[in-house]
């Protein structure tokens, strides 16, 4: 039997493209001061958000984003209104997602794709819906600067200097309700990335580790679908930031792809590099989540973007692997969204 909706080697064409019925983005104080601050549905005044720990604050953001998205979709957080909750985050054992799932009475799939989680969850949701296994799926992801820094780099109190090419983990969460039918932007294609290792070892240099994965997935998507860069109003990567974006443009050119003005990166969009001390730009699951849910999907609804390729990028390191001197493999997942 041949899978009739497979295109090429890595892409799935969704026969009945699912709709993004509702979406919500919540963000921390620094993101609120950034150029997209006015786009977010809710922002918090400080990183603790009235909670006892940063981890609890991260969880609060995820839950707030989920409830906002559900409210907009006019749905409650229970079956049969939502069939699945598909979520992931950056913390050990994806606790932000699992503990949030505890308060939502919905069958749950936990994902770990580092910062590629947004597209990974949309991919899983789309395939579930198009396959006829679900009508409505809640997708969500989050990251928090203080929890990610202490998990992946140094304790917050240590105050170690950051390298000039380092990125700043975004504090924020995004949630989307994906449905079989209804108005709204539609997910038409899913391109699943392969894990790629280009020998980067520095945990601060994640843009360089992820850029090859992003280019590989964009290339695979275009060759699988027979499309070209100009078929898209926007090709946007998750969190390569300034240096990673430059590297992606260079790597794409080597493979004959000219990523011009159409190509943007959420890590560049989320902060104002001239006013905010974020070095290379934003990173984290929350980076692509808040830019997509807070800004890009709204731009689609405003008619400014008609077709976009969202490519969320993830650096698959653990503190143990980099302390033991291993490379940082990376992955990028893409979804094509059209109005």
């Amino acid at each position: 039997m041949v899978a009739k909706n497979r295109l090429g080697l890595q892409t799935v064409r969704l026969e009945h493209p699912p709709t993004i019925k509702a979406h919500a983005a919540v963000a921390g104080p620094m993101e609120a001061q950034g150029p997209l601050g006015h786009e977010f549905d809710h922002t918090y005044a400080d990183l603790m958000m009235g909670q006892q720990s940063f981890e609890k604050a991260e969880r609060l953001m995820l839950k707030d984003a989920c409830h906002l998205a559900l409210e907009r979709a006019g749905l409650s957080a229970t079956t049969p209104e939502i069939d699945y909750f598909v979520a992931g985050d950056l913390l050990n054992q994806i606790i932000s997602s699992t503990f949030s799932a505890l308060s939502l009475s919905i069958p749950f799939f936990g994902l770990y794709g580092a910062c590629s989680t947004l597209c990974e969850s949309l991919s899983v949701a789309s395939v579930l819906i198009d396959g006829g296994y679900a009508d409505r799926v809640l997708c969500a992801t989050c990251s928090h600067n203080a929890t990610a820094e202490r998990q992946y780099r140094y304790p917050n109190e240590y105050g170690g200097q950051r390298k000039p090419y380092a990125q700043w983990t975004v504090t924020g969460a995004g949630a989307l309700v994906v449905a079989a039918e209804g108005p709204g932007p539609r997910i038409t294609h899913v391109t699943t990335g392969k894990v790629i290792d280009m020998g980067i070892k520095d945990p601060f240099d994640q843009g360089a580790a992820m850029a090859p994965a992003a280019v590989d997935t964009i290339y695979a998507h275009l060759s699988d679908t027979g499309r070209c860069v100009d078929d898209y109003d926007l090709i946007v990567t998750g969190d390569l930031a300034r240096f990673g974006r430059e590297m992606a443009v260079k790597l794409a050119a080597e493979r004959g792809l000219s990523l011009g003005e159409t190509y943007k990166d959420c890590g560049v969009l989320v902060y104002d590099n001239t006013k905010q001390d974020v070095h290379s730009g934003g990173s984290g699951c929350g980076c692509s989540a808040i830019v997509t849910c807070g800004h890009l999907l709204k731009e689609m609804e405003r008619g400014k973007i008609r077709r976009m390729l969202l490519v969320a990028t993830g650096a698959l390191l653990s503190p143990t692997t980099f302390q033991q001197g291993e490379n940082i493999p990376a992955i990028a997942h893409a979804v094509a969204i059209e109005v």
Partner: protein
Amino acid sequence: MMYFKAFLVGGLICLLAQVILDNSKYSPGHVLSGFTVAGGILGGLGFYDRLIAWAGAGATVPISSFGNALVKGALQEAGDRGLVGVLTGMFHTTSAGITAAIVFAFFTAVVFNPKS
């Protein structure tokens, strides 16, 4: 004049650390332990005390002075008590600094909570 010498030596040690941090793959932790070991070696060879005599706080405040103190303590007590003195001596000279770090860290943790 002493102020100027302290400023010069302390500043040069920090400058060297910053140059290493910016131009190598070493982390702040690597630089920290590297400077401690370097201070220990210079102390063992007798150079670090001369630097302290010349530059005062410019040489005693950076972490290299901690390495120097460890080695100096070990050498002093080794003379009096032999091999065991190498182990106990290290902490005789540095105990005030280490205890202060623990005590102040404890009270800071008790009094303050992280906000951002």
